[in-house]
């Protein structure tokens, strides 16, 4: 029985060890400190240089550290002054002259002036610039219309464009247009991306790789010092773990809550925020060949897909049914008279019969995930079922996101009849201009993978791009939406509502339609 004795002793030792491990964390569960907002992010940022990044995840940090010449007015996608106090546009729409705000300093103490603005755009656009090697700058083409940036005087800067380009102002409000400190770029060179300096409400404090990015209040902020003392951005890639951190009190604000987890946050100690944004989820239909070359079959697909069920059942109410190619978040350019195609399987069957496409075999490209794609596999399966219910024979092919883009972007010809796609943009020009014009077919470098072509739409979009009058642009976009809705080059499915959850210690927080995370007015006790 001596053996049992040993085992018992072993058990006691084990028990003690366990007890020690259990006792250790008492205190690890301390509350997050007041005045410091802990944000649960979806990934580690790539860089904190606004010209070098492309991900919404990184923009969430950058928008609080930097300012642009202009910004979106709170709660809208309309441009208002920021580092520039005003601007003038020449009659032909090719010269933009900005008056800059006086007395603004970068976090490193250097002055913000016209030279700094010129430095920023030259660095991005001019391959001979001494600091062009701090790139690459993947979204520099947002400003490819800029021919030159000139310093008129300390507080006046003039951009000359090679052609009128209406989205220029809203591109300046996009993170790629945020202004960095030339002195800091000169000091840190390629390391600037990890030692950022801007003019924003918060200044950069610390970046602990794979753990946190910390930013601190800028007391001298030109638009009023922020309420918070500091913000900590924690990368938590797994959505379930992010949800658990929020429930356990490890973070104060969580972005991109998975639809299935929303019910966890019904309690009084949480607030769920929702905001529709400039996002469209749609199906590209191959209008060049196969059954979808017939407009009636494309319309039939729009009638056949039960979009209400998709947004309410599959997406648990985290999206709204889309009516056309322009999301309602672009309030000034969206056509409110446009109603979504109703769910009407009988009408779909009638249209298919009229076109003689009963039992047509369709190949449907579905992605496993990807930026803005929501729940693509479940949505693809539901759409397949809806189309089969009206007599179409749909075969799904599923691809990993990067592979998917490699298949879809060069065009669907010879490969598929339909494909899932989603876009998030900052100007109503971008998506239709890049994905609906005849001149945007894949062989011409665009994203019109379904080969839609309508000269009327082409003319409207070209005219809207060169107009500098917003009302005129709005009229053109509204007209374009009516035609595209009728032609149905896509199945218009959903507009995503971005969501976030805050704890009851956080106040004054609101999501923006731009999907940016602005924290300068947020409070926490």
């Amino acid at each position, binding site marked *: 029985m001596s053996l049992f004795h040993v085992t018992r002793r072993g058990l006691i030792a084990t028990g003690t060890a366990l007890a020690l491990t*259990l006792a*250790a964390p008492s205190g690890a569960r301390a509350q997050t400190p007041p005045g410091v907002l802990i944000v649960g992010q979806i990934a580690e940022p790539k860089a904190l240089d606004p010209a070098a990044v492309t991900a919404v995840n990184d923009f969430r940090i950058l928008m609080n550290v930097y300012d642009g010449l202009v910004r979106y007015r709170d709660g809208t996608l309309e441009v208002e002054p920021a580092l520039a106090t005003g601007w003038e546009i020449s009659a032909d729409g090719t010269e933009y002259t900005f008056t800059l705000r006086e007395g603004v300093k970068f976090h490193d103490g250097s002055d913000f002036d016209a030279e700094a603005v010129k430095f920023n755009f030259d660095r991005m656009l001019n391959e001979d610039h001494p600091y062009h090697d701090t790139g690459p700058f993947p979204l520099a083409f947002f400003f490819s219309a800029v021919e030159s940036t000139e310093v008129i005087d300390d507080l006046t800067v003039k951009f000359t464009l090679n052609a009128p380009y209406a989205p220029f102002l809203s591109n300046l409000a996009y993170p790629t247009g945020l202004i960095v400190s030339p002195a800091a770029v000169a000091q840190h060179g390629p390391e600037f991306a990890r030692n950022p300096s801007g003019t924003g409400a918060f200044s950069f404090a610390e970046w602990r790789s*794979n753990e946190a990015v910390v930013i601190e209040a800028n007391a001298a902020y030109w638009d009023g010092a922020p309420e918070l003392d500091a913000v900590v951005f924690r990368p938590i890639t797994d959505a379930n773990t992010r949800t658990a951190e929020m429930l356990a009190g490890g973070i104060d604000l969580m972005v991109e809550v998975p639809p299935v987890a929303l019910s966890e946050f019904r309690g009084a100690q949480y607030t769920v925020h929702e905001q529709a944004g400039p996002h469209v989820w749609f199906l590209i239909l191959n209008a060049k060949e196969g059954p979808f070359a017939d407009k009636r079959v494309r319309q039939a697909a729009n009638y056949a897909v039960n979009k209400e069920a998709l947004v309410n059942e599959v997406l648990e109410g985290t999206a709204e049914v889309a009516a056309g190619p322009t999301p309602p978040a672009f309030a000034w350019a969206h056509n409110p008279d446009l109603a979504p195609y109703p769910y009407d399987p009988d009408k779909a069957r009638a249209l298919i019969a009229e076109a003689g496409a009963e039992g047509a075999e369709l190949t449907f490209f579905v992605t496993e995930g990807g930026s803005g794609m929501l729940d693509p596999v479940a949505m693809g399966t539901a759409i397949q079922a809806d189309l089969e219910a009206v007599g179409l024979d749909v075969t799904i092919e599923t691809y990993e996101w*990067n592979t998917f883009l490699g298949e879809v*972007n060069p065009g669907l010809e010879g490969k598929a009849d339909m494909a899932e796609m989603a*876009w998030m943009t900052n100007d109503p020009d971008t998506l239709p201009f890049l994905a609906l014009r005849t001149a945007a077919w894949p062989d011409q*470098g665009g994203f019109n993978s379904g080969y839609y072509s309508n000269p009327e739409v082409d003319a409207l979009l070209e005219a809207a791009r060169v107009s500098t009058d917003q009302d005129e642009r709005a009229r053109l976009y509204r007209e374009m939406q009516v035609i595209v809705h009728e032609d149905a080059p896509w199945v218009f499915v959903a507009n995503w509502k971005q969501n976030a959850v805050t704890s009851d210690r956080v106040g004054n927080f609101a999501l923006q339609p731009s999907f940016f995370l602005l924290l300068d007015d947020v409070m926490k006790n």
Partner: protein
Amino acid sequence: MTGYILKRLLSAIPVLIGITVIVFLIMALIPGDPATAILGSYATPENVARLNRDLGLDKPLPQQYLIWLGNMLQGDFGTSFALNRPVLDEVLDRFNATLVLAGSAFVLCAVFGIVAGVVSAANQYGPADKAITFAVLLGISVPSFFLGMMMILGFAVTLRWFPVSGMWPIYGERNLAVLLSHLAMPATALAVVATGVIARLSRSAMLEVLRQDFIRTARAKGVHERRVIWRHALRAAMVAILPVLGIQAGFVLSGAVYVEIVFQWPGVGRMLVDAILKRDLLLVQGGVVFVAGCYVLFNIAVDVAQSLLDPRIRT
């Protein structure tokens, strides 16, 4: 002995070169490229071509491979596209975290596995054996990521004994107690399956040894049973257990991927998964070569340890 070690080390060189070729080819052949991943929606052919040129990816493949290999031989693993950070810095940081996690899990599974196996064998078909066998079966059957999620729900969200995720708290002191509190759940989740496997194999190795003559001799001459089991028998059984430990060490290291994702542990497994999804070529290649190199070294170390225990192997 030195000759044996040297021979094993030399034989590792072609293995490592093979690994560099394979990982380079895999990353070159899978669809999708870094420029498309970086540009996302804006990946027009024109933009992709320009960015590929900026990233140095417009050169022919053999040339890219040789540049990469040459730089690596000089200790330069390049810079990650997606993290904008030297690959080696990132891999070393991450590997440290994985070593802490996998190392503790390995200690847990080795100690508990061997003890459970020995106790099982010494009480063959007794209640202790049956209880352990049942627990082991349960442990082997639960996937570590599922166990991890259940532990987070139970011990972090409901009971709040442990932090949910991460390796260190965001603010406050960094000491051993704090590390242990972050480590307890992921290390346990990672260790459970390997503990079961080691316990099963230790049990059968021990049973085989316990039937041998020298054990009967030891008992006959009156050696205390505790000493017979833990000294005489276990020592002989270790020759069979050690290779299992080696295999399980590899298993723990690769199983760390799931656990790292669930517990947001900043380890090398999660890094590789993220890097593959973002087509971060240099980080994937450098990370795989580094980890594979560690596997090779670890296997050599196990072989050497085994040859120390059993001189017959050393030929």
